[in-house]
């Protein structure tokens, strides 16, 4: 997935936008799949999970970038994980305080943000090598991209599985819900469908580029 491999020095906007679109963590890099599939059965759960992950991502990137020069190379991964685990514990209590129902719906998946490879990946690949400002922008971009991807999945699954969006019924009472979309297989199928859509778009663009090169 070498889409984002560019040689020129990227500006601030590029740092942010790369995560949202060109190097979208879910659709392009296929990272952090577990929560993507597990908690996207409704749009609300997807949004909450996306925001929680984005918060942990930004906070841990900030801290990692701040202390990047004083952490010995050998113990950096353990240090990063402990930083991430601290912020996840904070988010866990925060969600519990805001809405107990949401906390129950997301269940163990809030704690499991710790092992989301996306967060550790950004800490290791970007925040540990860049200044604080750029690291925050990068983390924010990735967080927004992740949240958008979760919403894409959650929206489709809730719309087809229950005929509603954010709990608001949209498709009327004559709509027969596709129960399977709410169940585990629906997660696999809708993610596969989104990936198909994106690879289709990419192929069309490449063919267009190839056509332009010939003429």
């Amino acid at each position, binding site marked *: 997935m070498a889409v984002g491999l560019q040689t020129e020095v990227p500006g601030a906007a590029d740092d942010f936008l790369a995560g949202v679109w060109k190097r979208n963590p879910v659709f392009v890099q296929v990272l952090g799949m577990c929560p993507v*599939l597990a908690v996207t059965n409704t749009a609300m759960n997807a949004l909450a999970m996306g925001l929680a992950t984005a918060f942990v991502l930004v906070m841990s990137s900030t801290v990692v970038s701040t202390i990047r020069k004083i952490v010995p190379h050998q113990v950096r991964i353990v240090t990063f994980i402990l930083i991430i685990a601290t912020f996840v514990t904070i988010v866990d209590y925060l969600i519990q305080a805001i809405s107990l129902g949401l906390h129950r719906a997301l269940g*163990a998946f809030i*704690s499991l943000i710790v092992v989301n490879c996306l967060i550790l990946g950004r800490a290791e690949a970007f925040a540990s090598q860049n200044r604080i400002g750029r690291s925050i922008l990068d983390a924010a971009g990735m967080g927004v991209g992740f949240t958008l991807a979760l919403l894409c999945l959650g929206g489709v699954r809730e719309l087809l599985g229950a005929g509603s969006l954010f709990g608001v019924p949209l498709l009327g009472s004559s709509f027969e819900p596709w129960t399977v979309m709410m*169940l585990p*297989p629906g997660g696999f199928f809708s993610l596969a469908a989104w990936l198909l859509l994106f690879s289709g778009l990419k192929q069309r663009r490449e063919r267009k580029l190839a056509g332009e090169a010939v003429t």
Partner: protein
Amino acid sequence: MNDESLATIFINACLVNNFVLAYFLGICPFLGVSGKRDTAVRMGAAVTFVMLVSSVAAYGIHALLTWADAPYLELISFIAVIASTVQLVEMFIKKVSRPLFEALGIFLPLITTNCAILAVALFQTNKGYGLIQSVVFAFGAGVGFTLALFLISGLREKLELADTPDIVRGTAITLLLAGMLSICFMGFAGLFN
């Protein structure tokens, strides 16, 4: 305390609530190292071993932290124990079988961030399992993970010979296969109430 029988716990963790196909845990290695049956089974064995060790450790930590009245340290201590167990397994495999070590590659250290393992520790604590129940639960989860990995790798080996359109190659077709497997595993749902 939870009074489920050991057989129920095992079958539940292994088939009915299969970690990969029903809970979506451990999807990264599921998509990453499921190309060959051989690698898949060995990866499954390594994960099962780490699960067993960290399950026992998690039981001890939970008891200790309950006694010390510091539940907020639970997550951090769980992940620290898992990371060190993975390090241990990595050194062991490197010593015993060099080719296997190279075949598993980057996915071996990544067992640390395999959500299935942390999930075993979290679920057994949430459900209030005793020590033996926890170990059986971890073993069932490991067997279920290996089973899912083995099934999908067999399918993918066949798939390489099949004539698939360019557009579905790679992750998309694997996810479609996983979805169908997941539907099959839903058939086990009626085993228990």
